[in-house]
């Protein structure tokens, strides 16, 4: 197993861009995890905010007596702190939504492939129907029905994403299901569940790893988009999307930094995760193996 990982890493290393992207992703995760310790200010502490500090340009010293390296937003938040906390929130939501969607989708896809019949057909029909609807639309409808807040947002993200995992798991597992060795394993006294977990699940892992990477990036985008549209999180706990949205109205008057710095953070995060996912696809695709 460790040999396979070492070989995978050798293959991964062939693209310097992907290596840089991986380092960026690791750095972003570290920044998000350490946010409470490295941020100069707690942006969620309403009492600590001073409206006199609102919309200070980058580099100014505010009433707190320290330099706002990236300026402040319209509520007087230190933008660097708000970005670090926003990043933390965005990553937390998208990673947990991605994990739930992964487990739920894989379970549906695997059982559809394993049991087949009318259950499998119906399950995949629903999944396909959902895949033909854009995620943004689905999330929009759910948020509209369920209202706003972190659980609602998570539910919308999971509902918009589980279908990708279900489709991927189903595709990989049903291709494997048709192979002789599975038939052979099923004809032995081994329990069906054992076959499912020991043989089908491992074969669906490589494509699922790729999908999970890409879907986390999509979830971050989607969450930011919903927040930007005013359908995401409450204003007191701004995620990256809401920070950008708050700054949008000041963009035309030249106070670019309120939108631009959170936006750059969002862009770099999403791009880096996608580049990592792209290279993982190359590494894990058996067709590309030399």
């Amino acid at each position, binding site marked *: 197993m460790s040999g396979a990982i070492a070989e995978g890493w050798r293959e991964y290393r062939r693209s310097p*861009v992907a290596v840089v992207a991986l380092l960026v992703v690791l750095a972003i995760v570290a920044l998000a995890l350490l946010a409470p310790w490295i941020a100069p200010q707690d942006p969620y502490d309403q009492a600590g905010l001073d409206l006199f500090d609102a919309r200070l340009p980058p580099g100014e010293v505010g009433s707190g007596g320290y330099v706002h390296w990236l300026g402040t937003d319209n509520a007087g938040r230190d933008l660097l702190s708000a970005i670090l906390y926003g990043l933390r929130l965005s990553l937390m939501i998208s990673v947990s939504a991605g994990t739930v969607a992964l487990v739920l989708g894989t379970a549906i896809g695997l059982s559809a492939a394993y049991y087949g019949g009318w259950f499998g057909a119906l399950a995949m029909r629903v999944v396909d*129907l959902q895949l*033909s*609807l*854009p995620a*943004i*639309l689905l999330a*929009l*409808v759910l*948020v*509209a*029905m369920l209202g706003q807040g972190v659980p609602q947002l998570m539910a919308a993200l999971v509902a918009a994403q589980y279908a990708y995992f279900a489709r991927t798991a189903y595709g990989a597992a049903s291709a494997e299901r048709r192979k002789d060795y599975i038939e052979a394993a099923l004809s032995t006294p081994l329990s069906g569940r054992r076959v499912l977990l020991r043989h089908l699940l491992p074969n669906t892992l490589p494509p699922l790893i790729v999908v999970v990477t890409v879907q986390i*990036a999509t979830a971050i*985008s989607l969450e*930011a*988009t919903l927040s*930007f*549209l*005013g*359908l995401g999180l409450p204003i007191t706990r701004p995620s990256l*999307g809401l920070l*950008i949205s708050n700054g*949008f109205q000041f*963009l*035309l008057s*030249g106070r*670019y930094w309120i*939108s*631009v710095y959170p*936006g750059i953070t*969002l*862009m770099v995060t*999403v*791009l880096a995760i*996608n*580049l990592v996912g*792209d290279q993982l696809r190359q590494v894990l695709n058996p067709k590309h193996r030399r």
Partner: protein
Amino acid sequence: MLGFLLGRLAQAALVMLVMSVLVFLGVYAIGNPIDVLIDPAASPDMRAALIRQYGLDLPLWQQYGHFLGNVLSGDFGNSFVFRIPVMSLILSRLPATLELAVTAMLIATLLGVPLGIWAGYRPEARSSKVIMAASVFGFSVPTFWVGLLLILAFSVEFRWLPSGGRGPAGPLGLSIFSADGWTYLLLPALNLSLFKLGLLIRLVRAGTEEVMASEHVRFARAQGLPEWQVVGLHVLKNIGIPIVTVFGLEFGSTLAFAVVTETVFNWPGMGKLIIESITALDRPVMVAYLILVVLLFVVINLVVELTYGFLDPRVRLKSGA
């Protein structure tokens, strides 16, 4: 062919029926239909009268029949906010969204197909690698952020184009007949096209690479066909199917993503309307929008499937048999 067509139409009708049940249940059984149909500002007497008028005291299946009948006759009730029939409200916003989406798809196709063919024809060239890197950028960076960057660059910094709004509507409610209309349309259309552009480049590149490696390209070269004709005849025809698929299927999702672009650029289309309706809890508009968008998806899927047969003779044969 006729049997095939009728079968597909029946399928589409079935999907619409299922969707109408889901929407009905979502809005009437889970939500409170009184909130949906009756203006919260109405007096209690009016409420009671309206409940009877809308048949909300009837059993659920009768209510569904009522709902379905209304939907089929195009009656979605009145908007709480605009106080006009929802149907005419949405239809009045339709031209703006359509011209935005179609222009975006055209930009994506006119740029994406040549760039994708080039990247697939010369995969090792430096220019191809740049194209592919740009395509990752195109479909991974959130649309609203790219829109913001476009405004920052072309409206705030260079002051070339307006930052939002729409030019005067001309014939058919479209703004594309005046130069002024185009100055407003250009940035939002470009913004909306970037995601599809990235997707299309990847799709066309993969298709081109596959065709270029095929035996019929080798045969064509052995006949002395010039390279432009190898590409023009064999590659274009063979990647036509995925392009039509994307153009068709993604057209629906372009309409959905127009929600974001319209909000960024303050473009008065259906997308902006639905966001406003959600924040204002204008539920009749939400219900109508949902049903119409699903209808649109079903129709597009049907058209794409029929176009398949036109482009791929092998499919045509099967459906004819």
